[in-house]
């Protein structure tokens, strides 16, 4: 009987292992999960202070404010997506793995969304109350953010992968990623606006879904290519 | 001709400031990029010639190799 054996493998095992590892690691680093949420709340607090506490005015701009603040909070959390793995060398190990890198990258992004984007989406209605967001739009707010933030995680991961090896990559990351976020912002905030006006939101949500589909099919490969560039550079 | 006189042409029916500002900036940038490209090429050739002369004097190719890495850092600017 051989002493050493190649581990039973296959892409499925590797993906599940990556998911589990990243979940555990992120749960240990509670601050990484909570920081974006606190940032979200803080930014929303800044607007009434900086603009006006008038509920009617806030209600008019609430959809956009909530979406922009959530978007920025998601952006903030991106830098740490690959950084700690890059720093301790486990990213390089991931690249050496025989399993398809796009699938593993997708697993990492999925965990990131689960612990960043989704919480932001669930917290948003609370902040919506503080901005006098009109009734009938709270569910759409959460739904559009949940759907949209998945795209934001995927697109943002490309930028994070490109800049993970750079010394001041964080600033550059924002420049790279924010223009690409704009379509998601337009249809996400648009969905909430439509809900307030009583118009149909299905078109907006459908487009958000389409954007997510495009991101899901293309981003993993871009992320993988970008990771290889950053590691080999 | 769409204009009766030179002054009418420059005035552009009251919109002269806008038309000439737009055309002016465009022209400046077009000309500017050409000037920059030509200066870039001239400086490059000057540098290459200097290196070729140095290599001749010293009779070694190691000079060229070190200068190449200097050029690489320089190339980042464009």
């Amino acid at each position, binding site marked *: 009987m051989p002493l050493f054996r190649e581990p039973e493998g296959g892409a499925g095992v590797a993906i599940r292992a990556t998911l589990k590892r990243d979940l555990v690691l992120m749960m240990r680093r509670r601050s990484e999960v909570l920081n974006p949420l606190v940032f979200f709340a803080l930014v929303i607090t800044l607007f009434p202070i900086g603009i006006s506490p008038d509920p009617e005015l806030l209600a008019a701009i609430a959809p956009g404010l909530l979406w922009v603040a959530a978007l920025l909070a998601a952006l903030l959390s991106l830098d740490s997506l690959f950084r700690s793995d890059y720093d301790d060398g486990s990213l390089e190990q991931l690249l050496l793995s025989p399993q398809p890198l796009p699938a593993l990258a997708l697993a990492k992004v999925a965990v990131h969304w689960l612990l960043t984007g989704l919480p932001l989406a669930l917290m948003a209605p609370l902040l919506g109350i503080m901005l006098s967001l009109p009734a009938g739009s709270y569910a759409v707010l959460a739904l559009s953010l949940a759907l949209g933030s998945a795209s934001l995680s995927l697109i943002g991961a*490309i930028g994070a992968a*490109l*800049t993970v090896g*750079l010394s001041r990559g964080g600033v*550059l990351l924002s*420049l*790279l990623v*924010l*223009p*690409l976020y*704009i*379509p998601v912002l*337009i249809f996400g905030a648009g969905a909430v606006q439509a809900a307030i006006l009583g118009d149909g939101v299905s078109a907006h949500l459908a487009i958000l879904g389409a954007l997510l589909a*495009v991101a899901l099919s*293309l981003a993993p490969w*871009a992320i993988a*290519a*970008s990771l290889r*560039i*950053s590691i*080999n*550079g | *001709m*769409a*204009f009766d006189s030179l002054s009418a042409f420059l005035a*552009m*029916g*009251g*919109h*002269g400031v*806008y*038309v000439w*500002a*737009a*055309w002016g*900036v*465009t022209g400046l*940038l*077009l000309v500017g*990029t*050409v000037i920059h*490209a*030509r200066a*870039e090429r001239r400086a*490059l*050739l000057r540098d*290459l*010639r200097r*290196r*070729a002369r140095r*290599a001749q004097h010293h009779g070694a*190719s190691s000079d*060229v*190799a070190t*200068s*190449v890495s200097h*050029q*690489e850092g320089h*190339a980042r600017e*464009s």
Partner: protein
Amino acid sequence: MWAFIHKLGSPKWFYAISARLQPWFWVAAAVLIVIGSAWGLAFAPADYQQGNSFRIIYVHVPAAFLAQSIFVSMAVAGFIFMVWKIKVADMAAAMMAPLGAAMTFVALFSGAVWGVPTWGTWWMWDARLTSMLILLFLYFGVIALRGAFTSRDSASRAASVLAMVGVINIPIIKYSVDWWYTLHQPATFSVTSRPAMPMEMWAPLLIMVLGFYSFFIALTLMRTRSEILRREANKRWVRELAGEVS
């Protein structure tokens, strides 16, 4: 034919071939832009509604077309570099980017200036200008990313990936922004569809567009040639060339 394309990939051959092509594009650019400008500024009729400020279209539209075309060219060049490892493609992509950003700025500036007599404001968040502004940021991103890497090969590959990601997003961004704000006039010029303008107005526009494109090709050829010299400086043919040039 493949042999010709393969030859183009060699820096030395590209340098030689482009030497012969360059002058034609400069001449074409000069002639077309001078004729187009004279026609557009002095001979074309003023617009019924906008008067003479309409003449800004003769720089705004060519610049806008170039701004988008250059980004697409950059992405295509990046793709060619990533797939076939042709370095000349990457050199061209690197040299194109600043001109693309400059043209985007020209489109923004001329569009904004045009807005003053037309809408009474220096800036308008309409679909066209907003898309152009986003495009300018995309250019800045590619240029900044290329400059951030110390290894040239990493810089080239990263810029190629970003350019490709950007180019996929450009139609998505355009569609989104168009949907978001439908104030700007519909596109007045398209090669395939019937123009809404009379011939006296769109003919000089076509000439200017062709002139700008010739300018882009001429300038990119010139700068790519410089970049070839820069990157291949330690090759013998470059050293010999430098020795010949007085």
